[in-house]
């Protein structure tokens, strides 16, 4: 019963946050200086032409009505049209979202396969020099910015060859091999930072469990290290690890702006970046709302799952609160 009430409260809080995000996006887009009519019609357009363009895009309506129309459209799946190219935003999303989602999903797979084992090893070897090396390498991993790593990789690949393509993007339907080939470098760039973050947090989570008395007790009972890890450490360390991985999934969908820009991948990030430069309201609003919604929903799911894994959280009201 308490769990159900807690879950309902958590869902309601997420909805409130989402509503707040939508208002903030809507307001900030409208407060932006610059005007898309300048871009579409050029600086020499007459007032009458401008007024016509504004009326055609519904920007002459009262602000609250514009907001309600937008939210209504989002709820019914109609995201409107790009002011500049007049292409349906829904169609563009359908084409671009899978690209970004592929990058994000493969990055998460790489991160889980490398980061978590790395974190475990560096926690279990925390005392030796291997632990110190691990700490240094993972600190280095989070210190290299994506844009720099991406730039250096472009440099390395373009001068040394290596048989990996840069910027030769091709859609999955046309040429699957080339599609994945063009995503290798973006995924590598994103993975470096993510692996380092997950490894650091896994190490901390495992060390936190290792100092607990019940682990000492099982060492004293003479249980084997593998047994202790399986039965005493894994489940206790799972919640913080899950939290950080969830945060990563959520951030990745909105965090591909730089790699898509550098490697010229037609995903959501590059779409949003171009739209921001053009003040293309419909695209900006919907893309940012989608990224924020993914973040909020992921955080919600992580909370609910953590609660199922670790019943102690129910007493204190959840891990993220």
């Amino acid at each position, binding site marked *: 019963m308490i769990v159900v009430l807690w879950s309902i409260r958590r869902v309601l*809080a997420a909805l*409130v*946050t*989402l509503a*707040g*995000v939508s208002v*903030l*996006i809507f307001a*900030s887009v409208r*407060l*932006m*200086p*610059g005007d898309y009519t300048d871009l579409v019609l050029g600086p020499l357009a007459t007032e009458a032409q401008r007024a016509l363009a504004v009326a055609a895009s519904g920007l002459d309506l009262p602000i609250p009505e514009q907001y309600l129309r937008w939210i209504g459209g989002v709820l019914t799946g109609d995201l409107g049209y790009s002011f500049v190219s007049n292409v349906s935003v829904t169609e563009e999303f359908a084409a671009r979202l899978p690209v970004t989602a592929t990058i994000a999903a493969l990055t998460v797979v790489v991160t889980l396969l490398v980061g978590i084992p790395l974190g475990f090893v560096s926690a279990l070897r*925390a*005392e*030796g*020099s291997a*632990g*110190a090396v691990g*700490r*240094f390498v993972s*600190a*280095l991993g*989070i*210190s*290299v*910015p*994506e*844009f*720099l790593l991406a*730039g*250096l990789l*472009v*440099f390395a690949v*373009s*001068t040394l060859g290596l048989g990996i393509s840069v910027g030769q993007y091709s859609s999955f339907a046309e040429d699957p091999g080339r599609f994945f080939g063009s995503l290798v470098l973006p995924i590598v760039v994103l993975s470096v930072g993510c692996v380092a973050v997950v490894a650091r*947090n896994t190490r*901390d*989570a495992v*060390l*936190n469990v290792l100092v607990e008395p019940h682990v000492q007790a099982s060492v004293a009972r003479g249980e084997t290290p593998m047994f202790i890890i399986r039965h005493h450490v894994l489940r206790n360390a799972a919640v*913080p690890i899950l*939290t*950080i991985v969830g945060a990563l999934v959520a*951030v990745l*969908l*909105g*965090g591909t*702006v*730089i790699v898509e*820009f550098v490697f010229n991948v037609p995903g959501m990030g590059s779409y949003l*970046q171009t739209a*921001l430069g053009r003040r293309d309201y419909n695209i900006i609003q919907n893309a*940012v709302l989608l*990224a*924020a919604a993914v*973040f*909020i929903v992921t955080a919600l799911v992580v909370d609910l799952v953590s609660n199922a894994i670790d019943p102690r959280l129910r007493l204190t009201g959840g891990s*993220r*609160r």
Partner: protein
Amino acid sequence: MTITPTTTQRLVTARDRTFGAWRRVDGLARLATIVLGALVLLTVVAVLTGVFGSTSATIGGRFAPPSPLAPLGTDNLGRSFLPRLFEGIATTLVVSIVAVLCSAAISTLIGMIAGYYGGAVSELVMRIVDVLYAFPALVLAILVSALLGPGRPAAIVSIVAITIPLMTRVVRVATRTVAERDFVVSARISGVRTPVIFARRLLPNIAGTVVVQASYALSVAILVEGGLSFLGFGVQVPEASLGLLIQQGMLAMTFAPHLLIVPGAVLVVAILCINLIGDSLRDRLEPRETRSLT
């Protein structure tokens, strides 16, 4: 013949090992402090005295390799790159430090209020902070810079907006654990005024947490400033920042790779040093159990 009990021996070696590792890690942090301090000192001297040359005078051909006149070669306009590099470091550091100080002050205050009062106040603060938290960092930065126009103020405001949510969360949790303790409760009962409780009872006990979070926020700030400038939404030419220099270096990397590699290396070293110092601060100031993992 003496028989040394094996258990004792094992305990001693284990302890030695622990202390050995601790000393090594601390040495790393010490080294990081020295490197970072030297970088800051050098930058301050370079910017104040202009000892490495002018940041605007043309002294040679474009993209010239290093020479006695221009120790790091020249950039796309034939200016000596070394003074430009220091100008860039100075901008990046000033923007990041100012932003983190603002962010730390704001989030300490609202985090303490939320943690101390709890209930509806806490709920309200956390919902507002959650809204900011839900934006992807760089997208939020680009939005802010589109609103304010690209430049230093936009970079500072976006760093503040990005770092506030996490810091506020952590401060709130830390405050909540302190606020429940007896010395705070007794101060409240004996009628100590609330601002005094905040300043004398709560703040000293969460200061360590704030310092640790601020050090991590500083590395995030440098990353955000770099990314923003890199995408063209941050500091604009003819000013310089590390991100801007890297972006310009990328345009010239096939024939003048040093213009990309040098500012890139400085950026990585600076962030790495800050992270290592942050790790070491955390080990000292925060006991393992109270650490936040998110």
